[in-house]
């Protein structure tokens, strides 16, 4: 019962951002329309590109389209836009409201994690919904085999953990970058670019792919999706899974270290 009550308490904290969105039907409709438009544009773009050349960078039209569509859905995994609700970590730090995080019997990093998991789970629900619709209308094909599906699911889970850490590290970095919203924007863009969510990494020059392979971002999206579309065969994905796992561990250590430093460095604006 106590465990149940504790879980219920965590759930109510985790769902806050989702509550912002679902309590405003206009926002939910807006998100749905935006996703549909983006996916439609992807369909137009990739059809036009493949009309010129039937195979590019080892991806068939169906594979490229599936990759691009899943890339659009991936952007939803960041969760609802909290900036409208003045509830991003950067906003809390900039306006001094972060003080309240340090006055509660819940460590700021634990509170942040609960919220981040809630946001990501909500975004994931959207992505799954969008995926099912795309599967139904034929924009995305099923995985090539049952093995590919299972390997993809494991890779997807690891990818979610990597994404959580990347987003959390960006959030904690705002403790230092309080006046540098531009830098925060660049980090967010780099995450999507190197993850492959803007355009499939297979289409980039070799040096870019090499650079990307040394960065954690592709573990969050490019690897699981490449497994899904069959560009990375499930049978030879072990190395990629290990890379993802290593990034999970390394990023969790970085995040832990950053939170320790952030706690010591809390500077609230105004005197």
């Amino acid at each position, binding site marked *: 019962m106590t465990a149940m009550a504790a879980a*219920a308490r965590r759930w109510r904290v985790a769902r*806050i951002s989702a509550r912002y969105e679902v309590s405003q039907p206009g926002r939910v409709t807006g998100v749905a329309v935006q996703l549909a438009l983006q996916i439609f544009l992807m369909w137009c773009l990739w059809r036009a590109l493949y009309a010129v050349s039937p195979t590019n960078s080892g991806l068939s039209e169906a594979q490229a389209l599936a990759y691009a569509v899943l890339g659009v859905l991936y952007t939803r995994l960041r969760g609802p836009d909290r900036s409208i609700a003045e509830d991003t970590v950067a906003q809390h730090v900039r306006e001094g409201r972060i003080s*309240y995080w340090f006055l509660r*019997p819940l460590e700021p990093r634990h509170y942040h994690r609960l919220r981040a998991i809630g946001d990501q789970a909500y975004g994931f629900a959207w992505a799954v919904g969008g995926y099912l619709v795309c599967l139904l209308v034929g924009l995305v094909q099923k995985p090539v085999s049952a093995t590919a599906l299972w390997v993809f699911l494991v890779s997807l889970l690891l990818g979610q953990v990597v994404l959580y850490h990347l987003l959390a590290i960006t959030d904690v970095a705002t403790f230092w970058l309080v006046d540098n919203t531009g830098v925060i924007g660049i980090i967010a863009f780099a995450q999507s670019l190197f993850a492959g969510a803007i355009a499939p990494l297979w289409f980039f020059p070799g040096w870019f792919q090499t650079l990307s392979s040394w960065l954690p971002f592709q573990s969050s999206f490019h690897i699981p999706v490449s497994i899904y579309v069959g560009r990375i065969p499930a049978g030879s994905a072990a190395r990629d899974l290990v890379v993802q796992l290593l990034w999970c561990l390394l990023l969790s250590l970085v995040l832990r270290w950053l939170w320790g430093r952030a706690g010591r460095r809390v500077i609230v604006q105004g005197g």
Partner: protein
Amino acid sequence: MNNPAIEARGLKKVFTPAIRQPGFKGTVRSLIAPEHAEIVAVADVSFTVAEGELIALLGPNGAGKSTTIKILSGILTPTAGEVRIAGRIPYQDRIANAHNIGAVFGQRTQLWWDLPARESFAVLRDIFKTSLADHARRLDELDGLLELSSFWDRSPRHMSLGQRVRADLAAALLHDPPIVFLDEPTIGMDAVVKEQVREFLRFQVAERGRTIVLTTHDMSEVSRLAERVVLINHGRVVYDGGLVELQQDYGSGWQIRVVVDDDAALRDVPGFLAKEGAALVFGGDDPGEQRRLVRLLTELDVVRNLEVRSDDLEDIMATVYQRRAVPVAR
């Protein structure tokens, strides 16, 4: 005297913010090799607050009040000095300390901007692990005092300033903390809501026995709520004592302006200072002399108008800040 709820000894806080030079070059430089300034926000602050006492922590802008409150509440670690809040060191024992304190920082809300206030209260209940029954009982009492139910289904985005501050006060007290820090809670509020908040604070001290540290620039608030004030200037305590004593020690005394039909006889009365227009002006430091003069004047038939003035608290504060370059010895 009760056990001290708050003990601060020799507090010092130095900030080292990065200095950014203007222009693109300056931005690049601040990223590669940042330079840091040294700002002493709090130089030397010591005072104690007893359980169930309300003190006003006063000082001009930038004096170090807010930094002091942030150290006391455990948000900031002092560069030097010691703090104990209900016996605990707040910045070392944040989680346990959180149950003992509540805080409102001016217009910065701790409520979730797009959630109805009642849902924010429920989230805080979950974070503080308050039981449903206790939460309902406390919320009911707070509603009775602050009239929350008329607007608690609205999100802070759609509340007036007065409503938001009332909701924030409730949020700060829902976990029933014995010690409350309020940093300019009534700033920008209208007179009616201000009075409601003052009444609320009086109730919290008198009936609930809470210890309150209040910062404000509103001197009428100070005179109505606090018996004791701690004045800070340039990061140091320049006065710590009763409000009445402060007025006696630093006030310029009393002044009486009187308009009479025939003023010849009154010019020889002790305390006469000057004639300003139609009015005779009397003044002095001795309150007894002031009372005697008021009695004398009210018995005279020739008096047409009588005005008794005492020092404005704001003027007294300004005098203290100017005169007390040397901090109080404690």
